């Protein structure tokens, strides 16, 4: 049973919006050209997905620590942001088959009795246009994001 769950989410068809998914894929399948570190050690599970959905709640409730990776629209492209998250029952409204990260924690808390310590890492995106490539600033920030995730996961 893993004690840390890492979830990278976003839309990889909208350029930088996919940075979380790209990072999760790198963590799950070691890519030596980009990063020589080993793929996730024991006790760490990695999920790449488009959106946070309620089906993740039981998985989230089962771990000690949750690390989320996403893109954000604010800030200078390529800037890494980090913040701790607490559960909050926020209804997203217009498309409720996905959840806000704090909503995912709330779902774990309400339905399964516990929510893990959680941190959200975001990278400021430069382009959210149609396309599969990360913009240069975000691509350059990817190793920094991966290094921080590994640091957090080892802590």
């Amino acid at each position: 049973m893993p004690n840390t769950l890492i979830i990278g989410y976003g839309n990889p068809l909208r350029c930088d919006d996919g940075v979380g998914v790209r990072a999760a894929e790198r963590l799950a399948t070691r890519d030596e050209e980009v990063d020589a570190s080993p793929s996730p050690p024991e006790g760490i599970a990695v999920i790449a997905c488009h959106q946070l959905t309620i089906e993740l709640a039981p998985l989230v409730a089962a771990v000690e620590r949750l690390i989320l990776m996403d893109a954000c629209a604010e800030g200078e492209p390529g800037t890494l942001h980090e913040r701790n998250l607490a559960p909050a029952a926020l209804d997203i409204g217009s498309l409720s088959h996905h959840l806000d990260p704090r909503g995912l924690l709330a779902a774990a808390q309400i339905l399964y009795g516990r929510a893990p310590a959680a941190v959200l890492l975001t990278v400021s995106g430069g382009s959210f246009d149609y396309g599969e490539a990360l913009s240069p600033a975000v691509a350059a920030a990817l190793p920094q994001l991966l290094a921080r995730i590994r640091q957090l996961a080892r802590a």
Partner: protein
Amino acid sequence: MDTRTIVIDPVTRIEGHGKVTLFLDEAGQVADAHFQVTDFRGFEKLTEGRPFYEMPAITARSCGICPVSHLMASAKACDQIMAVRIPDTAVKLRRLMNLAQIVQSHALSFFHLSSPDLLLGMDADPAQRNIFGLMQKYPQLARDGIRLRQFGQSIIEWLGDKRVHPTWVVPGGVSAPLQPAVRDRIAAGLLEAFTIAQRTLDWFKNNLEKYQEEARNFGNFPTLFMGLVTPDGELEHYHGRLRFTDANGRVIADALDPTRYMDYIGEAVEPFSYLKSPYYKPLGYPDGIYRVGPLARLNIIDRCGTPKADQEWAEFRAVDRRAVLSSFYYHYARLIEILYALERILQIVNDPHILDKHVRATAGVNALEGIGISEAPRGTLFHHYQVDENGLIRRVNMIIATGHNNLAMNRSVLQVARRYVRSDRLTEGMLNRVEAVIRAYDPCLSCSTHAFGDMPLEVRLVGPDGAVLDAVRRG
């Protein structure tokens, strides 16, 4: 005419975005209603020139909720272009994935999108009447919903190696045979899934009395119903012939060849929506209004064909002497279809030939036209392709389930608005009911929209001079 307009924009908890406009007359009564789809995707146009065998993978991207349904219809259209009979085991495996799709999609619709309306009450504050309010008050039901949806999604993922856009369904069959370990995992999950499905059905039936008001006013009017049936008149989601029945439950057209759909289905275009309005041609537009999806499927059949579902179906049909007309009962029908799908999944995993290795036929372009049809969770789905001699797409027509229900959804919104809108002010209870009746159809506007971004719910009341008289904003 002096009219005023109320706009509900967008409708929440449906797949994609929609907008409702209510037209008031001088007396402040609702004169007309439009349920509008204002986004445009254009899959039919952008696929022109692509090789036909790419179509399942491309058209599945129409939607993140029902990609499997598009895979089925698309692959079947491609089978026709190749003019092949696909291996029997491949048919069973496609059916297996399609049934899993029904389970996961119906579970999402019932447990996560519609049950807050049913359990927390139509007049509840929207801040509470959502998935979190539901979790707080009914945690067991919310957990059941998660488990059931997970089961359906897991089957899709195990078969196709991906949960959302699997590439396992291909022209000519499926790309890989079923692994014994996957079969065993599916079989192992069935007991819990059956328990949840039956528990939820029992709960729903025990509470039906509470919803008599909704049942009377939520899209309760005569229409035709359409869907696929087996040659024996049983419930069918993958193949079969089309049947139309009327509001009295009488079969008015049977054993129709789905590939000749243009002979009996017309498509009208309204200027206010990108969603076309299909109708039954012999009755004309708009009298040829018909409904598809779970309610329609349970109205057109002679029986389901599996023991547990047949028992439930007999009770369901006793709701009305003739056809079950109220769209409120889409919820009920969805629960019965989940039970049915689980029974069929059990039959398929126990089939002695299900692990056969021959699961794909190969061929080139042997016909210049292919029409694939299947029952998606929301109703009958058509993919119609024309190709040139090199197999490049020349023309595409897709009729999606939500499109078939377009006329009925409009009429349902009008019925609810007439019942609950009484002035030029908007109340939460009124808005909730208008949204809830749309959700009863579980419309998948993603299939025709891009659904990008999070727009808040904005409701506007506009006077004849264009001035905003009242505005409500959510989100």
